[in-house]
């Protein structure tokens, strides 16, 4: 009798516990059914995948090469980017550059555009699908869809994305010396980043130009480089500058261990002896 009483006064009786287990199990089954049926990834992918026109086709895949041994640190690529993509604020540079030193003590200049990862962490996390990897590999943004939650900034391990904290109304000091604005400025409250100058690529292909070879179809930073430290082009075309770059030089990508599969390849700054 006393035993029974002791049991009753415990927090949850055996019956309670069984009921809880049963109901939790049922809830799990329901969740499973819902997520495997109408809410399955396959079923929703069609709705979720943003459909955008533009010259996206699987025949091309755009990659960039940056030879840190060739780079002289002139920053022309940084400024050309700011002029072309109309980024007046130095804090918001899409293509950043800074003095660096290797472990061995060799000084070099590090520059970094968006790496346009194939497995881009920023793309997966966007709650509104305002950014995606195009079939040609470019990670594109829709400024009209972005809600400015900045989850993509949190997810990107390379510090690539920039948020418009204020209305960008100042004059662009890099124009016209380093180029003219080829795209519209972005409004306050949305995220932006390097686009591989996608507007040049798309328009260039329409005009029958070859991105990476013809300047009008090549990213501004690549064109601006006075020592050809940057190469660009279609990795599916063996004759493209980037294919030759990768063939001739020993390259690496930033933090391969993240599994992000970046499309920007670097050559180590130490000149081979």
């Amino acid at each position, binding site marked *: 009798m006393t035993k029974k009483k002791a049991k009753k006064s415990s927090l949850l009786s055996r019956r309670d516990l069984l009921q809880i287990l049963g109901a939790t199990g049922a809830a799990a089954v329901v969740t499973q059914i819902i997520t495997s049926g109408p809410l399955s990834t396959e079923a929703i992918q069609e709705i979720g995948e943003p459909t955008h026109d533009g010259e996206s086709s699987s025949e091309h895949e755009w990659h960039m090469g940056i030879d840190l041994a060739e780079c002289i640190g002139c920053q022309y690529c940084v400024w050309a980017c700011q002029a072309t993509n109309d980024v007046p604020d130095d804090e918001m540079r899409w293509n950043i550059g800074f003095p660096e030193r290797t472990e061995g003590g060799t000084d070099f200049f590090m520059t970094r555009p968006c790496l346009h990862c194939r497995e881009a962490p920023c793309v997966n996390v966007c709650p509104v699908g305002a950014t995606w990897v195009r079939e040609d590999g470019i990670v594109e943004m829709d400024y009209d869809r972005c809600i400015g*939650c900045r989850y993509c900034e949190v997810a990107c391990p390379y510090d690539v994305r920039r948020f418009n904290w204020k209305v960008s109304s100042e004059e662009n000091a890099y124009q016209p010396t380093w180029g003219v604005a080829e795209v519209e400025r972005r409004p306050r409250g949305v995220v932006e980043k390097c686009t591989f100058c996608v507007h040049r690529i798309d328009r260039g292909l329409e005009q029958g130009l070859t991105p990476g070879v013809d300047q009008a179809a090549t990213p501004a930073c690549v064109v601006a480089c006075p020592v050809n430290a940057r190469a660009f082009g279609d990795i599916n075309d063996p004759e493209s500058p980037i294919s030759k770059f990768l063939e001739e030089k020993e390259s690496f990508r930033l*933090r391969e261990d993240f599994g992000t599969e970046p499309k920007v390849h670097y050559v180590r700054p130490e000149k081979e002896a």
Partner: protein
Amino acid sequence: MALFNLSLPQQNRERIWWAWIATASAMFIVGLFGMGQVLIKGLQVTGLSDRVPWGLWITQDLSSIAMGAGAFTLSAIVYLFRIERFKPIARAAVFVGFLGYTSAMIALAMDIGRPDRFWHPLVYWNVHSVLWEITWCVVLYSAVLVLEFLPILFATPFFARWPWLEKFGHILHKASPVFAVIGLGLSLLHQSSLGATYGVLSGRAIWFKPTLPVMFIISAVAGGISMTLVLTMIVGKLRNQRVISRRLQFDLSRLAGYTLLAYLYLKLWDWASTSYYSHAPGTAEALTRLQATTPYTQTFWWLEIILGGIIPAIILLYRPLRRNDRYVMIALALVVMGVTVNRWNVTLSGLVAPPQWSPGVLGNYIAASYFPTWTEIAVFIGILGYALLAFSLGVRYLPIYSSDREASET
């Protein structure tokens, strides 16, 4: 006990009540000014940056939702598992949950760069994003909370002039088990997904682990029950009467205590397996930098583990201490504090020690620091003021506790 025993004359009690309402209103008004600043000038008025894009408001958002977890837990216990003796607290839990979720939504609306596009996640779907799933769950669950809360509202004398409303309220109340099931499902999803927001980011070693979602939901249950119970006990002390039975108070304390224990167990193994017994380069590198440049190691051990975990667990589970109301209230408040500090620590630790991607040795230390500005703090205080004001008025004028109902029925 004497501390809370306000055996003051009625007139003085009224004066204290109005002083309190004035304080909460002042907090809310301060927040309105902050919100105006944010809407007019944009997020440049915050201390946030591209390197630390989330801060105080995300912490408030995450902890308000965690503190609202008492609603789904107790609704499930009462309406689904039919453990009737928890019923007297169910309404209070739903009310606290409603306030938590609305607070979170205000904080989120301030935090996004384009509040005019708050509806985008509902129209433009990206099912790969945990944040998309969270948005949907939070919106749907807030609707559930409103439906659970409406019967309480319709039972007030004000709505008696429209009898069909009370009837509608009765129907809604009859459907409580259904809402409890939906609420349980939605909460199991998003309370964990909030942890997954960080846990799935493979590029940030300090966050990338499967324990985060589980720790988030378990700590939310502990925090949610604690929040509901401590508020209920404060109401009881101020009214100088028991609003819930002593037995229920013990049961809830133990429930919070055991949940806290489960949370601590997970946290122990999370710490042991990610930093003590192992040496993953990314994690080790980030932790070393955190230790060198921030106080997060200290706040983790002292505020999260010892003050927010071990001490309240002992008080809530050791019978002689549990019998002391004042100790229990302190313990519950400590749990709330610990969970809130945890949300801050998780958010900020991953951001202020960003991954090193430069192939050199100098560029690895691009500054990443954050301190909230006055505008951010004002909005934070304003949202807190909203919750406190709404809770105080709700408890005073709505039949939240069963003792109210008995009073109004007789």
